[in-house]
Structure formats: structure tokens, C-alpha cells
């Protein structure tokens, strides 16, 4: 396996391009850490908007976290909102522009810590919006402290010897809670640690947006994303670490579906 194939230009013979670098809706470089899962989630979200043909009526509401900087590179209308309040802002937008495809992009700190009330009230209202949660179990942006979804035993800067249920409490399984609330149309949990996970998560994002377009109520996709920096592991170890910690506490899969089962 020593021969090296040239990869500096497209192949010469007949060939189909089956995967682009990234969707054209990403219009600049992100500055996130090596091995971060969030840019992968952004890509599949924007690809899905394009595939559904709803780019020109999409409005995003982005919270505070490392993904917050995506506001500079995503070529859709965006309200960068206050930490935790995206579902409330999205509600206001959707109610005055019912034809828009309104989504939020939030982290676990944003949605499950600071914004727990807002997301649950929006869900119970059956608000026709789609919330995308990038769950890495830490406040990445502020350097790796414990959030409401940090799994037991995980070391963070505010749970130095690992999250201990007695002092630091238990993680909240937000997707499970939301799935149990009346008014909710779609809830799923995916990961971006493996190629299969990415492909499956993309289908979930599509289902969530379709649920909104069909007026079937609130939809949520919780995406488990790697944060090697906040987990204090090497970038290559991200997916494995995720598999062994977060993905055990938070089982991937569809938790609530209300559209006919096209898949």
C-alpha cells in the first residue's frame, strides 16, 4: 500500500462527481477545531435545505456556541439570537411568516442548559419549527465546562474528577423528553461520528424539515457531535470516545414520527 494516487485534480477519464467538497450554501471557511463534529452537521443541514428546494424560504436562528460562527458562512437568512432563546425567536418568525422554513441551530449548552424552558414550551406549543441540537455534552465555546447533557463520569473544567451524580446531577435526555410531549411531530437522534451515522442523520434532518413543511408540529433532531477539545482527547479519538460515552447514554434512532413512514 505504498503507491500514492494523485488527488490534486479531478480524474481524467469519464467520471461522475458523487460528492462535492461542500454545499454551495457554505460560503467561507469555518474556524472550528480539528475533528469537531459541528461542521459536519452544518453541511448536512444545508445540503438538505437545497435538496428540499427551500433555500429561498429558509430562515435560521442560531444560538451561542462554537457553531455560532457559522452565521458568517451559511448563505441563508439568519438571526443570531440570544443564548438559549432560539426556539422563542423562531416562533415569532414562523408565526408572522408561516410559509418560511424556520430552523434553529443550537448546542447542548444553548438548548438544554440555558434554553431548556424555551425548547420545551415551543415543543408543547406544537410550533411548526425544526430545532437542530448539536450535542457534544460540553460548553465547547467557553472551554469545556459541564452542561446539562454531560454524561456521568465525564471530566470537564467544572467537574474535574468526572461528573458525579451526587454533586453534579444527572444528564438530561432532551430528545426523550421532547418525544413525550403532545404537539411534537418528529424527534430523532443521530451522530456524525461515522459515515453511516452522517448519512442516517441527514435523513433525520430531512424528515424533520418535511414534518414542518407538512404542518405536523414541532420537530427536533439531536445530533451527537465530537468535541475533542472540550473532551480533552485527541481529534482522532473523538468518534470512539463518543461511541463509548455519549452514544451509550443517548441511543440514536427515531423517537417520534408522525408523517407516513416513507423510509
Amino acid at each position, binding site marked *: *500500500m*505504498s*503507491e*500514492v*494516487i494523485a*488527488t*490534486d*485534480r*479531478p*480524474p481524467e*477519464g*469519464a*467520471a*461522475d*462527481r*458523487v*460528492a*462535492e*467538497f*461542500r454545499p454551495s450554501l*457554505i460560503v467561507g*471557511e*469555518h474556524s*472550528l*477545531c*480539528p*475533528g*469537531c*463534529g*459541528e*461542521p*459536519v452537521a452544518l*453541511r448536512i443541514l444545508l445540503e438538505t435545505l437545497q435538496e428540499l428546494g427551500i433555500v429561498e424560504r429558509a430562515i435560521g436562528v442560531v444560538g451561542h456556541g462554537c457553531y455560532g460562527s457559522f452565521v458568517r458562512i451559511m448563505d441563508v437568512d439568519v438571526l443570531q439570537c440570544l443564548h438559549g432563546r432560539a426556539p422563542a425567536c423562531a416562533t415569532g418568525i414562523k408565526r408572522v411568516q408561516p410559509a418560511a422554513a424556520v430552523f434553529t441551530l443550537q448546542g447542548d449548552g444553548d438548548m438544554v442548559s440555558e434554553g431548556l424552558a424555551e425548547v420545551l414550551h415551543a415543543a408543547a406549543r406544537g410550533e411548526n419549527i425544526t430545532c437542530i441540537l448539536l450535542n457534544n455534552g460540553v460548553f465547547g465555546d467557553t472551554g469545556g465546562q459541564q452542561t446539562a447533557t454531560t454524561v456521568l463520569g465525564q471530566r470537564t473544567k467544572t467537574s474535574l474528577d468526572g461528573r458525579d451524580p451526587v454533586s453534579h446531577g444527572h444528564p438530561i435526555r432532551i430528545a426523550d423528553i421532547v418525544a413525550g410531549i403532545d404537539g411534537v411531530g418528529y424527534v430523532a437522534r443521530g451522530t*456524525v*461520528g*461515522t*459515515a453511516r451515522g*452522517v*448519512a442516517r442523520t441527514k435523513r433525520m434532518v430531512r424528515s424533520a424539515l418535511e414534518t414542518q413543511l407538512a404542518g405536523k408540529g414541532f420537530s427536533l433532531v439531536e445530533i451527537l457531535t465530537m468535541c*475533542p477539545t472540550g473532551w480533552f482527547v485527541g*481529534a*482522532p479519538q*473523538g*468518534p470512539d470516545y463518543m461511541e463509548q460515552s455519549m452514544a451509550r447514554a443517548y441511543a440514536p434512532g427515531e423517537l417520534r414520527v408522525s408523517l407516513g413512514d416513507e423510509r
Partner: protein
Amino acid sequence: MSGALVIEVERCKGCELCIAACPPRVLEMSREVNATGYRYPILHPGCTGCTACQLVCPDAVFEVYRLSSG
């Protein structure tokens, strides 16, 4: 099926996620570093064009082609 890649090595941040993701294990990290100091993937023969590398890469380094005559 047989595939080909374009790898934008300058965008790579060396996270190695693509290496583990490639089913036929035909990607390997370079010895050299790019301008910002990161090692990056190089391709050995055997790519199937499955797009796994592109799916997992956070930094949009890959473009994947499937060769018509497999």
C-alpha cells in the same frame, strides 16, 4: 466500483477522521505538513468512491468521483 478523489490538502486540519472512516482503508496520513502545520490524507489504490471520507470530514477536504468504467 472504483473511485477517485480530489483532496484539498491546504484545508485539512489533520483530525484523521477520514482515515478511520474509509472502509477499504486506502487513506493514510502524510508525513509532510501543509502550510498551517497539519498532516493530511494521501490516497492509496483501492478507492471505491463510497464517499465515506467526504461524509465524515469536518473541513470539506474531499471531492469524490466514481469512475464510469468501474
